[in-house]
């Protein structure tokens, strides 16, 4: 069964961001990570007419990105390896990793729906790694307020994720 445009768009929307972040794990935060994911999707797009049905898209996509990332590292490290005899280490892809990144993506998307103050505090805490005390100081609010807003954020995010 070929992949139609609607299916492609669905796969792209669901997985693109999670895959880019996953690729960063081995390639670091640079354009390489996004390039690798784009290559994988470009392959599916080009071959969509005669692609056999992808049974497990999650495993297929994460594995493809994993392999492409290894290729990229090999190509880049070839020179260094020759010089220093260093071994290339890329963590093996496991099913849980894909699950984990999809959860991260869902959390990330849910953050967008939070009320303003709640979202700002949650982003500072979870994404920027600031302590409750630092946030309280910066925003000139009580530490208790920060804690309450974070609890509230988790509650709302949980509700969001449950409806997905």
């Amino acid at each position, binding site marked *: 069964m070929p992949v139609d445009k609607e299916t492609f*768009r669905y796969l792209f929307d669901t997985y693109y961001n999670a895959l880019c972040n996953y690729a*960063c794990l081995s390639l670091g935060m640079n354009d390489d990570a996004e390039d690798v994911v*784009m290559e994988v999707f470009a392959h599916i797009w080009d071959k969509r007419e005669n692609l056999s049905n992808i049974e497990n898209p999650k495993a297929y996509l994460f594995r493809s990105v994993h392999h492409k990332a290894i290729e990229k590292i090999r190509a880049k490290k070839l020179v260094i390896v020759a010089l220093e005899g260093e071994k290339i280490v890329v963590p093996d892809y496991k099913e849980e990793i894909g699950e*984990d990144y999809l959860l*991260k993506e869902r959390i990330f998307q849910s953050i*967008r729906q939070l*009320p303003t103050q709640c979202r700002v505090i949650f982003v500072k805490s979870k*994404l*920027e790694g600031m302590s409750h005390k630092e946030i309280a100081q910066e925003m000139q609010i009580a530490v208790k307020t920060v804690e309450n807003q974070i609890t509230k954020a*988790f509650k709302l995010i949980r509700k969001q994720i449950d409806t997905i």
Partner: protein
Amino acid sequence: MKLRDNIRKINESDGHKQAELIQQWKDEASANLRAMHEGIENKLEDTPMAGYRQYDKAAAYEKITGEHYEKSGISWKKWAAAAVFTGLIAMAGLFFVNNKPITHYAAVNGVEIEHLNDGTDVTLDTGSTLDYNGSRGVAVTGRAFFKVSKKADKTPFTVELNKGKVTVLGTRFSVSSYPGTTEVAVEEGRVKYEYGGREVILNAGDWMKLSDEDIVSSPILTGNHFSWTTQVLEFKNTPLDQALQDISRHYHQELVISKEIKTAGKCLLTSKFAGENLDQVMDELKLLFQIQYYKSGNRYVITSMKC
């Protein structure tokens, strides 16, 4: 598999036994559901999110497929559900005069560009949000730069701020609406700002801010006023006190020069920053002018410099 087994069991047994089995099945199912929810609950808080970021999906999609990435936005139903449980329905009601759904945009982790239905482009700064009523009205919290498209029928475009409202026809301008800060700056065209029964017309090159509830306007004196939208800050023989104002605006962070320093206007800075964070910028200033500073909450206080 399990479901089919259960149904078979139920079908094969008599009435009394059936009820018992169904109850057993229900208990099992709710225990499973509970376990699943508890799983999410624990995982949610233990999932490290630091460094997780948003990539430009639309650009990637268009590059791969050569087709336009139609933004689906948030459907009216979903928004309404979210609005009810966050108690925002009263606010949403304000925008529903034209019966179109509100689309809610937020730049969570970095500057984002949004394309609105009417052809207007909006650059949203990190942490800022935009509610779009589907035609010619938005509400902003935080900082946003607008390139408003002109309508043939001259329908004005309105931007609601925390304090006040901006009305335009077709132009380029930015707004800042934070607690304690309200600013409007015009790059091209003309805009009208209204607040508390007063109004002011701003022309290209003007900017205004609310100072103790008073409207204060002045010309834009720096080429870096909109630098946060492009992430590029450029200085050519710029007096350091002026440069620090630009840096402060760019990073939306308060930079204060201690009163004892009288030389800030004499030190000249020539440099270009593209994508650096504030600490990197401060490091360069440290090298160039041996500035010394300390951080106090959200403020950087500069205590000495040489040039």
